[in-house]
């Protein structure tokens, strides 16, 4: 349902709706086949786990997966928004490779300041400031200097990872505060705080991106920057905004991360593969192969269930990384072939 909305939204801002002619028609059919194929594959894998993995179907397990996917989900939304605003072309479009490293840095700031005894409000503001600062650096590199996002954010990823190491000396920095305790153990209607966070954050993202004026403008900026500029939109500001938002998501995710682990730990950067897989996989649910918020949520949960199902079946967790890598390749390859020609 949610996957259909942005298509309409994006078409509304689309000056060149492609219908009719031969190659485009074939592309549209191929796109439909991919969309259905992806959904069927999802359904088939879920069904397979349901039939073979003991306990997979229980509500307890399902909410576990939602809870485990919260951090990934927040980061995937950040990446999805960057891809929407920067355009979904793989080589030149929007991407934020620094988001996971940024989350690691924010977690380090959060834990270090908490341990140093700063006021929780100050700690939260500093964490948020760190995330936004890294986002601003990305925005400056991409919009201000015109560097390809793939390279700009790769460089910033290393800056963030380096700062995290400097701050933590690659050690575990434990943190404890009432806010963290609430996030870690709080429950409402039997559902944990972290699971609620994903549910509410997703709802908010779907609402803002697909049901307010911001969404169509963002899709227009990413899909047809010239047209958007002609229509009076400040393309640079929108693109910069997506990187700032991605920085915000990194900061937000870092708080969830520290609450879950009671500490900042090395290795947050390893989340990048899952984040990219979730954001890119989310594109197969739209007609034009651009990320949608519903699609991003769906693919985030899919990746969560994949790891969970593998564990329940006793398959080594190392396979999960391999499968995620393969999924990224598959999605990028398939959508590059099937994506309607924009120019």
């Amino acid at each position, binding site marked *: 349902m949610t996957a259909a909305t942005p298509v309409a939204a994006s078409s509304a801002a689309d000056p060149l709706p492609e219908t009719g002619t031969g190659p485009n028609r074939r592309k549209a059919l191929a796109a439909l086949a991919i969309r259905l194929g992806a959904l069927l594959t999802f359904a088939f894998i879920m069904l397979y786990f349901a039939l073979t993995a003991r306990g997979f179907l229980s509500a307890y397990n399902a909410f576990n997966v939602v809870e485990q996917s919260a951090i990934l989900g927040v980061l995937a939304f950040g990446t999805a928004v960057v891809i929407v605003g920067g355009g979904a072309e793989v080589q030149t479009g929007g991407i934020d490779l620094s988001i996971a490293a940024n989350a690691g840095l924010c977690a380090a700031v959060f834990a270090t300041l908490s341990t140093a005894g700063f006021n929780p409000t100050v700690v939260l503001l500093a964490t948020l400031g760190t995330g936004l600062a890294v986002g601003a650096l990305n925005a400056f590199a991409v919009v201000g200097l015109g560097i390809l996002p793939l390279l700009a954010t790769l460089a910033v990823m290393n800056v963030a990872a380096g700062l995290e190491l400097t701050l933590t000396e690659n050690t*575990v920095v434990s943190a404890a505060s009432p806010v963290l305790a609430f996030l870690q153990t709080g429950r409402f209607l039997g559902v944990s705080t972290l699971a609620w966070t994903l549910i509410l954050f997703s709802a908010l993202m779907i609402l803002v991106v697909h049901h307010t004026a911001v969404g169509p403008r963002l899709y227009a900026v990413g899909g047809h920057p010239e047209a958007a500029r002609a229509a009076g939109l400040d393309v640079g500001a929108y693109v910069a905004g997506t990187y700032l938002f991605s920085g915000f998501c990194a900061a937000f995710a870092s708080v969830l991360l520290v609450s879950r682990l009671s500490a900042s730990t090395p290795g947050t950067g390893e989340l990048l593969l899952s984040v990219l897989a979730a954001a890119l996989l989310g594109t197969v649910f739209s007609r034009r192969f651009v990320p949608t918020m519903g699609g991003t949520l769906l693919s985030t949960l899919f990746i969560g269930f994949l790891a969970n199902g593998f564990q329940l079946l006793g398959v080594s967790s190392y396979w999960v990384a391999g499968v995620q890598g393969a999924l990224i390749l598959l999605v990028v390859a398939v959508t590059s072939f099937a994506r309607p020609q924009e120019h």
Partner: protein
Amino acid sequence: MSESRSPRAKALLATAAVTALFAGTAFAQDGKLSLEGKTIGVTVIGTDHDWDLKAYQGQLDEIEKLGGEAIALDAGRNDQTQISQIQTLIAQQPDAIIEQLGNLDVLNPWLQKIKDAGIPLFTVDTATPLAINNTTSNNYAIGADLALQMVSDMGGKGKVLVFNGFYSVPVCKIRYDMMKYVLGSYPEVEIIEPELRDVIPNTIQSAYSNVTDMLTKYPNEGDVGAVWACWDVPQIGATQAIQAAGRKGVQTYGVDGSPEYVEMVADPDSPAGAVAAQQPYEIGKTAVDNVARHLAGQEVPPFTFLPAVLITKANAAETAGPFLPKK
């Protein structure tokens, strides 16, 4: 016991007695141990080092041998993965969970959840009051013995480079604290500040460059007398760095008994000074035996120590054999 036994036989008897003591109740009702029809969850932070892998393998082999079913989870050195695995493991309701190594600050709330879920918790190398039993080496003794060997080799004075990147790992905390305690009696042995940080991954490369840098910073013979770490993988890099720099009078000291490092200690020309070699496979196996005992209704002590051997340059010819790389 007759008085006519040879000294060798006496020594053997003594060894057997000590082993029996260490292994706790191992000899009491063995043979009847079984995990038939039981599911045991095993969660480890990683299996990328010799010690980790052997302890993990020891557990899995013993679970299979006793007829149980293992849910074996390797978190690949990622704390977040381990937490998610533990969470899912709790949902699977195994008959017991064995947790191996990891950061206690991160683990504690989740170990508590295992306990709250009514699942008996056992640990390997993780000292926590939440576990029914922790099977491990006597890290207090290891820490003190290794430090005393180091102080002795240094002649009671000099400076020590210390790797202290894993204080949040309980066994490292114990060994480090014991080393400091020993140094308390030898004020002429000083730790160089700031301490170094050993890391995972890239442990060996990182230690190599750290020690190379420090030898450059302290360029004269006698500036540095020893390099200490709570395990031995960084010491492989440290030893190589000292050798490459051609420095005399610096020796390295570590714990675990990784074959490559034991080989260095056994080599008279290498600056590797001593290593406390443990029996990770036996530790893993014994942890499972403890689970079986507990599930059979027997009393299990809060900790079980497996003996470790301090391999030094002086005794390597007699002690290093079983720990050397398999040719």
